[in-house]
């Protein structure tokens, strides 16, 4: 699905790897490694300074950027909801493409396990976990094929984080999504991911099955990271 060929940008250096459809990939590594920067390359919030990125064998630079971003949805660490109601947020993306259908609203809230009565609620009245669920629903409203997640639970308490994780797992299964998630939490990585990309100082140090990587790290960097 995605192919990175010698991609460099900011701290990232000559990254080459591919991601298959429906893979659940965890990007992890120490702070400042360039994980979020890498994530933002997938939907062209950044463009590589050298190298190329392909989506289904077409260079992503050749996509109409809005179409690409519709296909490759992003959920950030902070929900960053827009002022207004839950509905205002959910229909934001589809309205841009003229595809909003009022009947979708309730379905989307059910996907993220929020009561449908929340639809007209002001987002300021929601808890942190509820806000993140609305943020998820807002991204799903565009019917993406790929879900990019930038530490979506790191600002939440343990219990809420677990609930969001569960919600994410269901969503990814139900919608056959490809998931690429940045996390610094190794337990979360092993729970949600199948494959891991371990990044240090902008370089891809290890790439493999996440459970094997965590049990038998091949590099000293990963061994040290697990110990820490």
């Amino acid at each position, binding site marked *: 699905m995605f192919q990175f060929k010698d991609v460099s940008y900011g701290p990232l250096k000559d990254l080459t790897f591919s991601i298959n459809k429906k893979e659940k990939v965890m990007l992890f590594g120490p702070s400042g490694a360039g994980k979020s920067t890498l994530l*933002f390359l997938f*939907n*062209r*919030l*950044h*463009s590589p300074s050298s190298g190329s990125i392909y989506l289904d064998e077409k260079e992503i630079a050749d996509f109409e*950027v*809005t*179409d690409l*971003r*519709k296909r490759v*949805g*992003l959920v*950030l660490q*902070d929900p*960053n*909801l*827009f*002022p207004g109601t839950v509905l205002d947020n959910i229909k*934001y*993306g589809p309205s*841009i*493409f003229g595809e909003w259908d009022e009947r979708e609203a309730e379905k989307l809230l059910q996907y993220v396990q929020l009561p449908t009565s929340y639809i007209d609620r002001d987002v300021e009245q929601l808890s942190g976990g509820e806000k993140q669920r609305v*943020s998820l629903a*807002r*991204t799903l409203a*565009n019917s993406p094929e790929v879900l990019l997640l930038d530490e979506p639970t790191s600002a939440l308490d343990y219990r809420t984080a677990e609930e969001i994780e569960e919600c994410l797992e269901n969503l990814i299964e139900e919608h056959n999504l490809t998931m690429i998630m940045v996390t610094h939490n190794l337990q979360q990585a092993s729970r949600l991911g199948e494959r891991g990309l371990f990044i240090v100082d902008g370089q891809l140090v290890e790439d493999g099955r996440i459970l094997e990587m965590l049990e038998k790290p091949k590099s000293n960097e990963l061994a040290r990271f697990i110990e820490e």
Partner: protein
Amino acid sequence: MEPEISNQSLLFLIVFVFIPLSLSYFYQLGLSKNILWSSVRGTIQLFAIGYLLTYLFDLRASIGIPLMISIMITVATFHARLKGKELPHVFWYILVGLLVIEISVLSMWLLFDMVEFTPSEVIPMSGMVIGNSMVAMGLALERMKNEFKENNGRLLAALSLGAKPKTASKLIVQKTLNAALIPNVDQLKTIGLVQLPGMMTGLILGGVEPVMAIKYQLVISLSIFSSVSLSAMFITLAMYRYFFNAQDQLLETEEEIRTQS
């Protein structure tokens, strides 16, 4: 009788400078140098402009007015651009904006016979329009930069959902314009109740009938109100797009904004 303040009386104004100076000293605000410098600078500027105006008022209107308005617009542009100096072409946008606003307002005044085309009427009134527009543009630029910084995540979210920069920035533009316009709306609401506006006070002190002074004040207040609104709107709508590049990506650092192609 024209009011007159003697030079000796003016010297006593030093007391008014001494008060904030003492406050700064006692509370260690570190503002003493600034207070002294701004007082001296303000006094020199005012006297200089007084002599310049006397000279300009004696010139033919067709020379004195364009000359002074050009000077005012140029100085205002240099000053307002400091608030957004990392934004490409900001100088030219401000210059053109101020020029268009001043020409429009002046045309309205002359067309509807509100003001006579004499330096003594056009120059002070234009000064107020240009000065207020300059402040509005500067504030709008500053506010917009802060809003872009504070709403970085929201902008990224909006772009990621497929929004073009214009749609993604809608909230920022709204907030910036709100912040620029609300003080003016409030000021207009309380005009004459909380404080007598400067121009009206000046005219009354100069011996003009209060009702006549009010008419002039209305002309200038509403002219300022519309030019401030236009200035803020123009500069915000002209500049927001420089926070994005041609690939609809958000530029997050001053360096990226300055060096965008």
